[in-house]
């Protein structure tokens, strides 16, 4: 069989799905087999994603459409590959490989079906990035969420179940909002294909516009809950803190799914021909984003435990991205995409690092988030879990260096990619298309710099407490297989820094095609159905 690019588009969904389902047939005792199968699957995913990125970037940006069941557009449920979705696919697999390697240290033994759940989560993520149909997006969201419920509860335990209960209840309610939004949009436009919607929304009659807009707003609330916008994101830090470390590392991209969808839909629906609904919702995104940054800053400064600090860093990153989407300017969007990649890698590495650093400390002290001094030193000696494997000599040095690298990335200091991302955002804001900088933009600039400062203060405080002045000096015993993923992710950010030029050019091209969605819309609506089977056997 000949694999045309159109067929390769569905591979990021099929690879984790088939592998994950096949692994169900083996008992959990066969860990080596399960682990190698899922690692191979994620490596295959990475290779396919890189190939897809190259396809999408050729000829000044191609839009590859896969028509499921070979129905003609716009009736087919389709998968659409463009630069943005290819980039998100690569980011997913780049995060998945280290998280999976990390879990081999101990976490994949902590409960049943870790690998299957993990692969199904990847399937849901990839599907959400690829789909070009609103209802299909709902289905992939549910696949992703169902897997994440299992993973967030992986390893069980009182605190995890308590946090998981809230997480599931909130997301079930959010899914219902998603459905209401989708059905309102369908009732008004008669289509669910995103490209078709982009054409039909400006043509909606004036008297029906209010219903359509409320439908889109309800849909937006569902995504904002996922992205963690204030005041919809109170669940996020708690859930991420209590999730097992490799799961938290991959969950960092789950909050970015909400951002991805908001970015894509807002520019697709209200971008090209603004019409009456032009710029709908962008002030809410902007000011909501600012409020999220403020809430995140307060949370970062108030966090005593490292896990919560990382959880609130996710909120700061989400808030920054939301505010930038609200600004809807091409060059700022390009910088924001770079920031998205950089901050996701950094926070993901940080979540895994935290688990290693805090391993020797009692589980309760991480969880209660009380000051360490007040908590006393008695609990420090408790070792609640047996230590597997040999300690690396100098592990504390590697952990310390990784911690410093994470701090630099989160605070946005040179020389790592966090600085380039923030610098690019600030440059873009300070050189607006119209000439004058609006007062709203000044607020964003101030908050961006403040968030960096607060991250630096919090990280320095936590670093001194953990590495220089612990109540009981303990050398964390970590396996090589657990420190390697953290270093891998940090090297990825180093690569982002070194290759910043070409990557920024790619992001700019992505942002331009996002802001002028004509090629996306035409690519989808004019996609030819695949040739019948006889053609391929002849060749």
């Amino acid at each position: 069989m000949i694999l045309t690019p159109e067929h390769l588009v569905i591979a990021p969904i099929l690879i984790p799905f088939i592998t994950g389902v096949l692994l169900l047939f083996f008992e959990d005792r066969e860990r080596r087999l399960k682990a190698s199968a899922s690692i191979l699957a994620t490596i295959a995913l990475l290779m396919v994603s890189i190939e897809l990125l190259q396809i999408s970037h050729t000829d000044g940006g191609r839009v590859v459409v896969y028509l499921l069941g070979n129905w003609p557009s716009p009736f087919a449920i389709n998968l659409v590959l463009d630069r943005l979705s290819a980039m998100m696919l690569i980011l997913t697999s780049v995060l998945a490989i280290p998280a999976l390697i990390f879990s081999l240290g101990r976490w994949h033994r902590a409960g049943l079906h870790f690998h299957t759940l993990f692969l199904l989560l990847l399937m849901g993520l990839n599907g959400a990035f690829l789909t070009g149909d609103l209802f299909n997006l709902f289905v992939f969201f549910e696949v992703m969420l169902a897997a994440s419920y299992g993973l967030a509860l992986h390893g069980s335990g009182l605190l995890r179940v308590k946090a998981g209960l809230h997480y599931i209840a909130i997301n079930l309610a959010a899914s219902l909002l998603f459905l209401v939004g989708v059905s309102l949009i369908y009732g008004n436009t008669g289509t669910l294909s995103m490209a078709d919607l982009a054409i039909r929304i400006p043509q909606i009659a004036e008297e029906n516009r209010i219903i359509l807009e409320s439908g889109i707003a309800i849909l937006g609330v569902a995504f904002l809950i996922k992205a963690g916008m204030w005041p919809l994101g109170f669940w996020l830090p708690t859930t991420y803190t209590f999730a097992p470390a490799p799961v938290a590392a991959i969950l960092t991209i789950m909050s970015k799914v909400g951002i991805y969808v908001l970015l894509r839909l807002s520019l697709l629906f209200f971008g090209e021909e603004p019409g009456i609904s032009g710029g709908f919702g962008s002030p809410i995104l902007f000011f909501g984003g600012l409020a999220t940054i403020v809430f995140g800053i307060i949370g970062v400064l108030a966090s005593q435990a490292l896990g919560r600090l990382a959880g609130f860093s996710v909120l700061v990153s989400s808030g920054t991205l939301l505010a930038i989407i609200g600004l809807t300017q091409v060059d700022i969007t390009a910088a924001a995409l770079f920031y998205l990649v950089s901050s996701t890698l950094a926070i993901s590495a940080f979540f895994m690092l935290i688990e290693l650093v805090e391993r020797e400390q009692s589980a309760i002290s991480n969880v209660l988030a009380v000051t360490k001094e007040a908590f006393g030193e008695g609990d420090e000696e408790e070792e609640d879990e047996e230590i597997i494997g040999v300690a690396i000599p100098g592990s504390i040095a590697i952990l310390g260096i990784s911690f410093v690298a994470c701090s630099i990335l989160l605070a946005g200091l040179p020389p790592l990619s966090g600085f380039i991302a923030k610098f690019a955002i600030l440059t873009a804001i300070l050189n607006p298309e119209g000439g004058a900088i609006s007062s709203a933009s000044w607020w964003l600039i101030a908050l961006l710099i403040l968030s960096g400062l607060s991250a630096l203060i919090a990280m320095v405080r936590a670093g001194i407490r953990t590495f220089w002045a612990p109540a009981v000096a303990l050398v964390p015993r970590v396996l090589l297989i657990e420190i390697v993923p953290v270093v891998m992710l940090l090297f990825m950010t180093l690569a982002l820094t070194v290759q910043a030029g070409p990557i920024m050019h790619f992001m700019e091209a992505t942002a331009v095609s996002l802001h002028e969605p004509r090629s996306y819309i035409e690519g989808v609506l004019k996609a030819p159905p695949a040739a019948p089977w006889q053609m391929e056997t002849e060749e």
Partner: protein
Amino acid sequence: MELILSLGIGVLVGSGVWLLFRPRTYQVIIGLALLSYAVNLFIFSMGRLTINAPPIVQAGVEIDSTTFADPVPQALVLTAIVIGFATTALFLVVLLASRGLTGTDHVDGRETER
């Protein structure tokens, strides 16, 4: 028919939201179930309410779209029901685990002090 359906959806949403904000996990899950019924009916109503208009195309007969029920919302409802059922079942398991671990059916895992 429109009035009865909208009243039904309204009552389901009202009771569902009220139950969702109650402190017992059982009330929360019943609230979520009621809300999902309401949402399913709502999706259904988005295809316009029609009677005796099955979406069956006969060969040789010209299609008049006004005499057909819209089949898409029906397909959407089926998917939504299946997914909603599965996630509610999953939530039920977590609810039982929480009851077993904390010894209480309060959503926060401990009773509020009075």
